[in-house]
């Protein structure tokens, strides 16, 4: 059975019979007429599946599959959005989804990384940060820093530091944060975030774990309680 998380920039496809995971660019995925999924999440998957699952619900259910703790916070930093869920007693206490702005998302940093040919594994974290009010403003600040003599790598690390601060604030400044999405493979991001809180990287397949259906959230699984 093929299940897929069709994100804005990357599509993760899992064959549950063989456990083979394929990660392809969504721009390539949409060209492939042969791809049809049993279950899918993510915008680009809507018309390519038998059963569509809401992204935030898939993330929540996947998190419950992978994390055994009673109380925890998980954030998915995706290509163009941020999704956050706080669990208390394994019930959802708070969820949020930052949709419209690329201020804290992967696509922006991918664009910059490609342009400056950055190796994010080798990039050292910066103590300084750029105020990433929005993705475009942040990019403009990087260009400004580079044009006025700051090393391109340092400018990018400052941008990443700005993203990290946004993510940390968006999630309510927890002591520990479970991270989902492509940034789990970005060493500079991980090291920078670790200066603010303890980080556990869950990888890129958390929503896929949710699609497997091990944990089905029922209605009223949101406590509605204040933190």
């Amino acid at each position, binding site marked *: 059975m093929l299940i897929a998380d069709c994100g804005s920039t990357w599509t993760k496809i899992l064959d549950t019979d063989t456990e083979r995971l394929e990660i392809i660019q969504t721009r390539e995925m949409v060209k492939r007429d042969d791809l049809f999924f049993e279950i899918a999440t993510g*915008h680009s998957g*809507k018309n390519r599946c038998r059963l569509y699952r*809401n*992204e*935030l*619900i898939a993330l*929540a259910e996947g998190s419950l599959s992978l994390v055994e703790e009673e109380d925890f916070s998980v954030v998915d930093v995706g290509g163009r*959005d941020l999704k956050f869920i706080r669990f208390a007693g394994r019930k*959802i*206490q*708070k*969820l*949020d*989804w930052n*949709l*419209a702005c690329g201020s804290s998302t992967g696509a922006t940093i991918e664009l910059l990384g490609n342009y400056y040919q950055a190796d994010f594994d080798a990039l050292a974290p910066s103590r300084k940060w750029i105020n990433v009010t929005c993705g475009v403003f942040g990019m403009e600040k990087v260009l400004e820093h580079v044009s006025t003599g700051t090393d391109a790598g340092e400018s990018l690390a400052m941008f990443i530091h700005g993203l990290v601060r946004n993510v940390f604030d968006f999630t*309510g400044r927890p002591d520990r944060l479970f991270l989902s999405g492509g940034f789990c493979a970005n060493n500079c991001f991980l090291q920078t975030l670790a200066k603010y809180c303890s980080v556990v990287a869950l990888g890129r397949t958390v929503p896929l774990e949710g699609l497997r259906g091990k944990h089905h*959230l029922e*209605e*009223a*699984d*949101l*406590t*509605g*309680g*204040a*933190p």
Partner: protein
Amino acid sequence: MVPAPENIIGYYGFPRREDIRLARERYGCHLPLVDLDVYQGAPDSGLLGTTTCRIISNIVDNAVFYSRRLSAVIADVGEGKCDRGRHIAYLLRGMGFQVIESRITEAEFENRPLVWSRSAGTLRERVNRIMDSVIDAAPPGDTPLPCAPTHGFWGVPPHDFRILDLFPPTTHIYGWTRCVEAGRPSDLELECSIDEGVPTVFFTQSFCAKQDLAHYLAEKFGGMEVDCHRDVNDSIGGKVEAFLKLS
């Protein structure tokens, strides 16, 4: 011969009822009153920045769209609207429109019953019925019974009403829209009154100052903050859907 299109009187926000009455007396009681906050099919005038609350842009776009048909604009420039409402009153006057500034003071607050905010029924229709009460304060003839809330919608009437269609009929209405029904448009206490335990979406237009309140209240009451600039897209729909489904 094709008759000339009828003139109209435009208004925005929640002007004083007396100012509406006087404007109708002056410009014609037969003229339709048109809510300029609401998208009327007007093209973008391009007169305001792109990072302007869509409701404020609607007012200016509508005014330009109706142009000479607009006999007057009754502009809510009080605390019940916002600074931008006050600023565009100035701007519209500068463009040559007849602008009547209107401010409801606390002394003029009404205490109307919360009928539509607390009843069951299509959220879209109930919000519309509340907003109709700005120009027609007569009590509804078909008063619905109150219901227990399963969910809450807090905020102003959105630019794109399709977001309201996502909510179940047992959704109570809070925030500025409830204030309008009560006849107390700048009553901040009422605007921030929420029934605890009712999972509530705190909605604002993007770039609206009410985002501060929405953020604070969503944190305080464990609700979800949603902002939307122009049209509702799949992401916003998915966010609201997830919240409603899990609550």
